[in-house]
Structures are given as structure tokens and as C-alpha cells.
């Protein structure tokens, strides 16, 4: 057999062995067998001296080429085994990605607080500041200075909780108007979100609920400005398509006064159980600050005018989330609260 033939069959043999090798270890024995110091290729090359220079050159080149080829195959196969090993190693730590996550689950927001915050932020972005007052309030601020004298039937509009310290649980956020105007001279642009209390409990009334009061006092503020401001607010909360209706009404601390209805968000105005077939939902009360209120706090009603409004938050939250019983809001049954994850 010529050397050439020998080399060629050696290459074939090595190819075959590498192809069938099943581990990194078998690869190294193949390497030793063919390319080692005592390997087959070496021993062939040892007999190179017997050849003519031309043949030596030719066979030498061939032997080198075969050597490189075998080395290359070995490297590739080795790489294959390494990758396979890594894959197997990784596979051992395979995680069922569908297992429950192991991190704190975000808490739920309360729908009323959420609504309160949303509305407050809307007014803040319009340029109103947040004002506040206590919930245990003086009768004077809750009623008298708001032009609701003692023994006036207007006090019947708000069933009051009386306290053993001679004060009341505020029946509305309107006393914050008084507190603000006693401390601050016009111009004034505030909102007052907070808890209020009335002696009333049924599926649509809670003895505790939340209101946001708004007050804007400056020169040249008119009823039409009030309409504009409330339009921005109501469209911001209920969307551009909401219908808005102003009905003249009566509140002792505003004059003229109005109640504001929005088109029923349930039926769209065609009439349903929620709107008692009227197509409208009463949403807030408002009006121009009564001169008696200005006088009570020492603001000149001939110089300044202003508007005020007050809205119940629960009503809006209940419409927004289609909640049918106000009492659910304050039971803190987590089966209820957990439905409100992911709202702001």
C-alpha cells in the first residue's frame, strides 16, 4: 500500500471514529491514536525519509492537510460535546415558568379613595390647592356661618350626629370654606376632600361618606364660570359625551344654587332602574357663594364673588365600578377590596 493510500485510509478511519465518538474522553483517545507522539500519522511520517524529495513534499503536504482536518473535526466534535454538557447541566435546573411568582403581590386600592384622589388631582391640575379642616367640627362653622341658622328647616337637609363635647361630626366639607376664608384673603381657589357624616343608613346612604368641596373666590367670578369649571371636571371624569344639566335648587350657603345632573351612565339617558327612569343622575350641588357667608368671614361681597360646589365621592365611585350597595365600601371584606387591584 502506498503511503498516500495509507494516509487516505487513516483519514477515513479517523473520520469514522470521530463521527462515532460518544464522549469528550473518547475524543482524546482518538487524538492520541492518530495525532499523538506515537500516533499513526507520526509513524507514517517517520517513513517519509525513504521517499524522493518530490514525493516527500507531496506526501508531507498531504499528511499535514489530513492532520489539520482531523484536528478540526476533533475540535468541532469537542465543542459539540461541551455544548451538550452545558445544555444538560442547565436542563437540570429547568424551572416550570408557570409556577406562582414568589414576590409580594401589589395591594388593592380602595375605590372611594381612588376616586377621591383622581378628582382631587384633576382640580389640582386646574390650579386649585387642597385645603382641610377637622371632622369634629364646631356647629358655628358647619352651620351658622354657612347661613344655616339654628332652628331653620334647612338643618333638616342634613341629619346631624351630635357629640358629647358640644361639637358635631361635620355633615359636609363646606365648613372648610369657612376655615379657608377666615385664614386667607381672596383670591382663593381650593378644594377640600374628606370624610363627612350624616345620620342615615340604607343601601344608598352611609352614615359616613366622602365629599370634595370646591371654592373659587375672586373678582368677577360668575355662575357661567361655575358651569365651565364643572363641565371640565365632569367631562374629565365621565368622558366628553356626558350630558350635563343644571337645575336651580337651594342651599343656604349659595345663591343662586343649582343641582347638577349627568346623563345616566348606565342607560345613557333612556331611563333605567339606576336613574329611576329619568335618564339623569344627580351628581353634585353648587352655586354662587351667598353674601351672608362672605360677610360672616369678612370678605366684601360687593368686591368679590365666588362659586362653591360639593360632590359625593361614593356616588361617583359606585357608578364608575358599578357597585350596587354603599355599605360594601366600608365593610373591608377583602373579597370586595381585592377586586380593585391595579386602579390608582
Amino acid at each position, binding site marked *: 500500500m502506498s503511503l498516500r493510500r495509507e494516509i487516505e485510509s487513516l483519514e477515513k478511519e479517523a473520520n469514522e471514529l470521530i463521527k462515532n465518538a460518544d464522549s469528550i474522553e473518547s475524543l482524546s483517545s482518538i487524538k492520541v491514536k492518530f495525532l499523538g507522539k506515537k500516533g499513526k500519522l507520526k509513524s507514517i511520517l517517520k517513513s517519509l525519509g525513504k521517499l524522493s524529495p518530490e514525493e516527500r513534499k507531496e506526501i508531507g503536504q498531504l499528511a499535514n492537510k489530513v492532520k489539520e482536518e482531523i484536528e478540526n473535526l476533533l475540535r468541532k466534535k469537542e465543542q459539540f460535546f461541551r455544548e451538550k454538557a452545558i445544555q444538560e447541566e442547565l436542563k437540570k435546573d429547568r424551572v416550570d415558568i408557570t*409556577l406562582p411568582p*414568589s414576590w*409580594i*403581590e*401589589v*395591594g*388593592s*386600592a*380602595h375605590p372611594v*379613595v381612588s376616586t377621591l*384622589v383622581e378628582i382631587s388631582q384633576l382640580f389640582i391640575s386646574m390650579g386649585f390647592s*387642597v385645603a*382641610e*379642616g*377637622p*371632622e*369634629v367640627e364646631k356647629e358655628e362653622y358647619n352651620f351658622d356661618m354657612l347661613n344655616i341658622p339654628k332652628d331653620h*328647616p*334647612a338643618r333638616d*337637609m342634613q341629619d346631624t350626629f*351630635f*357629640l*358629647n*363635647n358640644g361639637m358635631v*361630626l361635620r355633615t359636609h366639607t363646606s365648613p372648610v370654606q369657612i376655615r379657608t376664608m*377666615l385664614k*386667607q384673603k*381672596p*383670591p*382663593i*381657589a381650593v378644594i377640600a376632600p374628606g*370624610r363627612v*357624616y350624616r*345620620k342615615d*343608613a340604607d343601601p344608598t346612604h352611609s*352614615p*359616613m361618606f366622602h365629599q370634595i368641596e370646591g371654592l*373659587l373666590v*375672586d373678582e368677577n367670578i*360668575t*355662575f*357661567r*364660570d361655575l*358651569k365651565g*369649571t364643572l363641565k371640565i371636571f365632569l367631562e374629565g371624569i365621565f368622558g366628553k359625551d356626558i350630558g350635563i344639566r*343644571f*337645575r*336651580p*335648587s337651594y342651599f343656604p350657603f349659595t345663591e*343662586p*344654587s343649582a343641582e347638577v345632573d349627568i346623563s345616566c351612565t348606565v342607560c345613557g339617558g333612556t331611563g333605567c332602574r339606576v336613574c329611576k327612569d329619568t335618564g339623569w343622575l344627580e351628581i353634585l350641588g353648587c352655586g354662587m357663594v351667598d*353674601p351672608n357667608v362672605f360677610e360672616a368671614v369678612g370678605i366684601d361681597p360687593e368686591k368679590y364673588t365666588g362659586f362653591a360646589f360639593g360632590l359625593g365621592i361614593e356616588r361617583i365611585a359606585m357608578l364608575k365600578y358599578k357597585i350596587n350597595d354603599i355599605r360594601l365600601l*366600608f*365593610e*373591608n*371584606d*377583602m*373579597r370586595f*377590596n*381585592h377586586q380593585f387591584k391595579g386602579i390608582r
Partner: protein
Amino acid sequence: MKVPYSWIKEFVNIDAPVEEVVKKLNETGIEAVSYTFGKKIENTTIVKILSVKKHPEKDRLFLCEVTDGVRKYQVITAAHNVFKGAKVALAKEGAKIGEIVIKPVKFGSFVSEGMFLSLEEMGVVEKAEGVFIFPEEVKEGEDPNRLLGLGEEQIIEIEITPNRGDALSVRGLSREIAAIFGLKRKEKLPVVSIAQEEVPEIKFLTDKVYRYRGIVIKGVSIKPSPFDIQLKLIKSGQNPINNVVDVTNYILLQEGQPLHAFDLDKIEGDISIRLAKKGEKITTLDGEEKELTPEDIVISDDRKAVAIAGIIGGENTKVDQNTKNILLEAAVFDHISVRKTSKRLSISTESSYRFERGVDIENLPNAQDKAVELIQKTAGGKAVGEKDIYPHPYTPKKIKLREKTTIRILGFEVKKEQAKELLNRLEIPTEVVEEGTVSEIPAFRAFDLEREIDLVEEVGRLSGLNQVSETYPKIPTQSFRKSDEFLFELRTRDFFRDNGFDETVSYTFVDEDIYTILQIPVPSIKITNYLLKTQSIIRDNLVVSLLKTLQHNLRFQNKNLKIFEISSAFFDSYEEIRLGILATGSFIEGFSYTKGDKTFSTEEKWDFLKIKGVIFSYLRSLGMQDVELKEINLPYLNPYQSAEIMIDNQSVGYFGKLHPEKAAKLKIPKDTYVGELKLRYVSRELEENPLDKEGYLFNLYKKKENPVFKELPKFPSVKRDLAFEVDESLQVDKLLKTIKNSSKYVDEVRLFDVYHMGNSKKSVAVSVDFRAEDRSLSDDEVNSIVEEVVKKLQKQFKGLKLRT
């Protein structure tokens, strides 16, 4: 108030559909709805009862023979008020009442050929006792639907705001409707002549009565009212009683003037209007005895009180079947007194309701004369004496309405001629002057229209506040202040929510019981007129509410709870906005997992350090650096697992594990942790500045200075692990802080092991980074620094040893 539309039409020529009237009333300030009176029932007829016998076989049933004028029917009824000669409505075969179709039915061995109708079946009232007895003048064979106006008559129901007492009558509402529609109101004036033969003696012993007119009518005969009067009362939601009483009610509804008829023969001596004596008693028409006080006005004869003025009459002078002579009272009493008495005695009547809202003092004789006319017509008798005491006759107030005021308030112009026209429509005499108009306020609006602004409202509402277009005000930015308090709470809320706590909102009023269980004093502020005793205490902390919430949720097997509330706690002279938290069970419910020799659980349970972690993380998020814990002794917390939170030597809150005894009493899990942080002070006094108060997170947060950037270190640090043997009682934090401050080269100290060795000793192992600002420290240098640190520590902590 319910008013038949047909009654309104007696006072104003209006033919607009009732829906239109209701719509316009709503648009101009009176809440109104309309509905159809009753339900029309086919196959009914008026019958006369010819005989009534007890059913021979069935208890409680009666056998009646009736006729409709054409044929006889046999009807079996359970109604007790049937009698021979009564005229009633009979539903015959085929009549439909709700879902039931009438057909002959056997009761025992007798057949009933129909059913007598009550006002309930006719859809007039929700619950009726007995069948409806028609007056004698009704003829058998007539159609009850037509007689009653069932399914035809339109009823307007209005609800007035407290300022509109003037609209609380057919006449007043007609005036309003006439004004809205620009129509003329009409009125048929009474024609009566009162002989002055027996003038009643009337004295005022109090100034709380403004007018009193008494008329003596003699020779009346008491019987049921004519059908048209009865019908109007029924349609207005009232029960007919007898002709005299019905007339007083009728006139009250029509004119808004309360009237009262006394049985003259039961009055002993003269009439006086006086204040009640302390402890004086009167039995009122409803049969209840009431005790009076000197703030109540009474009508009195020489011996006794005969009525509580403006509210209700007395039993002792009641008009009954035998009454022959009456004293008819029309009066106006002080509205505040009437209201006080009505409130105190919890009696609200049609009369008191109107007095509280203002009665037209000038219309009094007109209304009363109409009553006299009607009584004479329906009960006979003759008015034989009248006395009218009216010490201070009404003088109209003049109010000017300036054009410029209208535009200043409403934002649109109402020209003075237009204002005059609108006010005249409301029957307010108004003249144009240079600046605007001047009106003379009639008595019927005296309670409501006192100032210029009140007239602005009148012209505004009649012009249509809904129609006018909106404008957008300039919000005065110079008064804007950053709403830091609001944003601070928002931030707190976001932190706890993002960290897994559920937001709760609970009632401010709580039960006394929880305080007893927790062994803390019951707060002093209480609701005196509470709805429920369990909701009568105004809470002074949020934990009581959070514990209640836990109890509530345990009922639904929810054992893992992490909740918070941001709300007020109440004290004698101020309020605090607090954050309350409660955590129990696991904060990650998790699951356990095993594969080969690897086992782990993802469950995480709450413990003291985890709660501390949440609170400290929150405080850190606010930039609070030096937070320290101090031991605290609260009766409801485990004394060894609770702490007071101190910042700048101010106590800002506390947290800890619930005391196991209290947990057991509350039937809640032992591993329940609660805490509160005082966020803000809310003052009740205007002069107080909440920012001056100590111990509130918001105030500390406001005062906090911004971090100042320091150059990053240029040289590396050297880390050494050191273990110290110390007394078991030494607080680790104290040791860590001392190490930190023991040398300028100590850069950072981290705890990595605490080991209780017994013998009241423990080993505390820390990893310390040493660093110099200007060079790399050599091993030798670090060794000597450590030596120096240990020496300092040994000086401060007796018995401290460095373990090697």
C-alpha cells in the same frame, strides 16, 4: 306634596301636558314628578248593598246581596266595613285586578259573583283597610273609574327646598306655574257674611303668635264630606274624616293656611294663646299624652291647653259626631317656636311643616273665609262671630335689584325691563328705576326674598340657568400652594400598596367593646344621637378598626391579611392623620418545592423584623435616616416584641406583635402585628399651626434637608470579619453604632451573625470595611486600627471580648 293637576287648573288656565309642567318646574327649581292616579279596572260598577249576612259556614266572611240597578249579585267579602245601603265598587266577572281575573268563586256552598274594591286594588294607596265606601249621592250602575278618575287624573308630586314654603299649596304652586308659563292666575273669592253676634274672646299672652283669627260657627252637623271634597283629599294623599275636619284639611292643601276646628262646647271660658307651663300635659288628637315646656306655644281656655299651637289639636276639644258648634282657628305662629316644639316632641304634621317654612299671613282671612263658606255649605251652620288679632300688620320690604349685580353674579345680562316682567309674573310688584328695579316683597315670599341676591336668583332661575352657555374662569394662580399634605398621604398610600398592603376605609365610630378587650381607655368623644350603640365612640386610633376588619375577614377564612388605612384619630382638642397597618399570616403565601435533594419554600411569614423592615423601608423612602426604636409598654402588645418609633427624639408611632391574651380574646391569630404612624396634625383652632407640632412625620419630612453629594472614595477599602463576645442584654444596634463611630477609618459595619452562647453571653459577628481617604490601608495599619477599636469597645462595654 301631591296635587291633582285638575285642582291646579282651577287656579290657572293651563292646557300644557302635565309632563311639560313637571319638566318646567324642575328646570326652575321645584323638584317634581307626575303620575297617573290609580288603575283603571274594566267590568266594574257601583252597586248598593241590599243586605249583609254572616256566612253560615265560614267565619269572618260576609254574604252580601247587591244591585247595580239592573240586576242583583251575590258577593262574599271579608271586609268588615260593609253595611246595608253602602255604595261600593264591584269588580264583576272578567275584571282584571293585577294578574287576577275575577270569575264566580265558591266559598262553602255559596257563590261570590265578584269582588268589592278597596283603594288598594284601585291602585290609589299601597295598603287599604276595608272596601271603599262611596258617598250616598253616587248612583248604582255608575262607572267607578270615571267617578274616581282612575287611570286618568294626573297627579303632580313636588318636593320643595326649605325656602319655598310659598309653593306648598295648590294656590301657591299655581302661582309658580303661572309665572313659569307666563299665564294669569285666577281665583274664585269667597262670599261669606259673618254676623257679630257671638264674638269669641281671644287674648295674646305671648308674642310668639303673629295673627289669630277665630270664627264661631253654630249649628253644624257632622257627617261625611261630599264626594268631590273626599276625592280631592284622597288624590292628595289624605284620608277623609268628616265634613268639618275635611274642610280644614282641604283649605290647608289649597291655600297653605293651616286651620283648626275646636268643638266650641268643650271650650271652657275664653281663648288665650300662651306659653305652656313647665310640665303641663296635653293629650293630642292622635291619643298620645305629651309633656310641654315653656318654649311651647299652646292654645288654651280658662282651664286647660286645648291645642299645641301650629302643630296638633287636643283630644279634649276634638270635633266629633255630636259636635254642633265650632270655633274655627286660622293663625300664624312663630316658625322657630313651632319648629322647636315639633322637633322636641317628634310630631310633624302638615300644619307644622307649613308653619316652619312660612305661612302667608296676608292670605289668612281669604283662606279662612273659603273654609267658612265650605263648612256652611257642607255641614250647615252659621258663622256668628269673628275676631282677628293682628298686632303688627305686614309691611312689604322694598328691595332694589341692580342690573350690574345680576351680570356680576350670573355672568349674563338681565335688562331691568325683563327683570320687572319676570318678577311681576311671580306676583312680586316691581318697578323699573334707574339702576334696575325695585320690588315690594309680598307676604308669601317674605321668608325667602330678603336681599338683592335673592332677586338675582329669581330672575336667574326664570331665565333658565341650564340654557346659558358656560365660560372658563381664570384660576388665580397667585393663591396656588403646593398641596404637600395631600401628596404626602398619596405617597404613603402608594408605598404600602406597592408593598402588598390592601387599602381599607372604615367607620370613624367604633364599639366600646374593643377598648375593653384591649384594656385601653375608652375615648372621650362620643356620638350622643348614634344610630347604633356599636357605632358611637369616636376612635382615637386606627388599630381598633383594623382589628375589626381582621375579625370580619376571618369569617371568610382569609387568614393572611395585610391592610392599611390612612385616616383620622380623634382627641379632645385636635385630630391626627394616622397610618395604621395590620399584618398577619404570610405575606407571600407561597408553596414548597422539592427536586432531588433540593427543597425550598416560597412562603414568607410575618415576624417582628419583617414588620420593622416595611416600616423602616417606608421611612427610608421619605428620606428619614436616623430612626431608632425604643421599648414601649402598650397593654395590647407583646412587651418583648413591640417598639416605639423615634426620629429626632420624637415619638412618631409604634408597632409590634399583638399580646397573645388579647389575640385570644379577639379570636384572631396569635401572629398578628399592628402599628401606627402619626402622619399629620389637624387642628380645630384656626390659630394653631400644625407644622409647629412635634412628633409628626409630615413635619419631620418638611424640615428634612436634602442629601449633599460627597466625592466617591478614591482608595479601596479593606474588609475584616470580627466576632465579639458580649453580654446577652447588649442591644446589637448599640454595638454596631459604637463600632461605626470608634474610628475615622471604619467605613461600614454589617452584622452577619448573632449567636447566643448561654451564660448570658452572645457572640456578635460583623464585617467591617476600613478605609482611609488619602491612601490604601496596609494590613499592618488595619491590624492596629482593629486593636484600637477593640480597646475602645472594651472600655464602653464591660466584658466585651474579641473572639478569634
